């Protein structure tokens, strides 16, 4: 190799140089994209809420203290508002209905309108019957309903299963 003539190496140079130049450019661009891409991915992960969801059974009160057709309102540890209504008196968890008062349409709070026997959302005129099923407005068009929460009765005490740790 060392005997090769200078003229030969000169004629090979442009191709080899061009190839090496392309390879190094691509390597450099790839490295930059991978490096900054990883950085962007980590930044996105930093901004995305990191805690998982967790649900637990939470004590509500004594079952016998809620009379037929009465309702109580409570707030879950994550800040959600829930209405628990007594619909029957069989002495089981099915006597009660636990509904979220957060409108499934766009998250406003519904309120009970006794004169219309319905929950009403003032944001976009959504209405729900006493069981939480949408009857009017955009939630009815999308066949939505107020979220239900599971209930349990142990020794006459009501417990509700709600999120205790929110995504955050």
């Amino acid at each position, binding site marked *: 190799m060392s005997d090769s003539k200078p003229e030969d190496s000169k004629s090979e140079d442009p191709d080899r140089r061009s190839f090496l130049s392309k390879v190094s450019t691509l390597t450099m661009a790839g490295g930059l994209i991978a490096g900054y891409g990883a950085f962007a991915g980590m930044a996105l992960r930093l901004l995305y*809420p990191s805690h998982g*969801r967790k649900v637990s059974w939470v004590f509500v009160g004594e079952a016998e203290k809620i009379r037929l057709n009465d309702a109580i309102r409570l707030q879950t540890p994550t800040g959600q508002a829930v209405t628990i209504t007594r619909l029957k008196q069989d002495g089981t968890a099915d006597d009660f209905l636990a509904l979220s008062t957060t409108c499934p349409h766009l998250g406003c*709070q519904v309120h009970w309108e006794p004169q219309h026997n319905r929950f009403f959302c*003032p944001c976009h005129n959504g209405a729900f019957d006493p069981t939480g099923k949408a009857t009017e407005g*955009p939630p009815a068009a*999308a066949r939505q309903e107020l979220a239900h929460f599971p209930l349990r009765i142990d020794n006459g005490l009501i417990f509700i299963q709600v999120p205790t740790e929110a995504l955050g």
Partner: protein
Amino acid sequence: MASIGAWFKERIPLQGEVLRELTNEPVPNHLKRWWFCLGGTPAYLFVVQIVTGILLAFYYQPSPSTAYESVRYITDEVNYGWFFRSLHKWAATLMIASVILHQMRVYFTGGYRRPREVNWMIGMCLLLCTLVVGFTGYSLVYEQLSYWGATVGANISENIPLVGGFLKRMMLGGETYNEKTLPRFFILHAAILPVTMILLLGIHILLIRLHGVTELQFANEPADAPKHFRFLPDHFYTELTIGLVLMILLSALATILPADLGPRADPLTTPEVIKPEWFFYVTFRWLKLFSGTAAVVSMGFIVFVMFCWPLIDGWIRRFTRFQEASVWIGIAAVLTIIGLTVWEAAVEH
């Protein structure tokens, strides 16, 4: 003195021809009419927003426990706090109004047509940024209407197919409005969006300089009248006059109708009557007319059509005989927007 001047001339080589070249762009004659200067108006108001926003940021504290109290403190106790807060609020209102008027002017005079399509798209991005800045700014007050406005706004994004849930969680910092939400809105409002807008504005103005302003000919203008005038000083004086009028108008509005403060946010009670800021009345009414996903997807489609309008209009003009279709479509769109806004303003629910 001469040596100081020479020292600066050597280090900042921006004199003579270079400076004349940069500032003395010939300006088309129609820009002597002030309503053609609506592009400069939002730019001026944007500067007012930056200055007043920086002043307010010295006192504002973005957390649910402190935000409302800090706004009350600015309004009631800080020297001239009420005035600068009111200036910020009214400049935002006028800025959004002038951006919309500017866009309408560009639309109806065909200023978006070839070769200015990209600048229209940048203008659309600026319009969307302006609306989001308005939305996040309104949410920072942490009064009842701003809290529920923010909740509705974040939940709207959840209806976007595929990425909606991700967007909502990124915006709120969780599933629902929580203590991490206000800092996010504040950073968007005071850092990310203004910087984005400055960059977009830079490109917007650069493209205007590269292409020049669309030239309009009016019927009552004599044919031999000069077609252009100089940017410096003639057009600069027009912009200064507009700036002066805007400052007087803003001061008058801030004094006569100062920014008020509603009841503190209550996450457990949505007010019986809830309305967003006037520029979202159209969206709010639209959301009442259709279910969540249908409303959001249709709004997204409308924004997409607006964004691509120069290309769609070009296609219509090339392949159909409806050369002025854009005018009739524009009139129909404006009437629809006005109609929905008035409808939302006129009724409680």
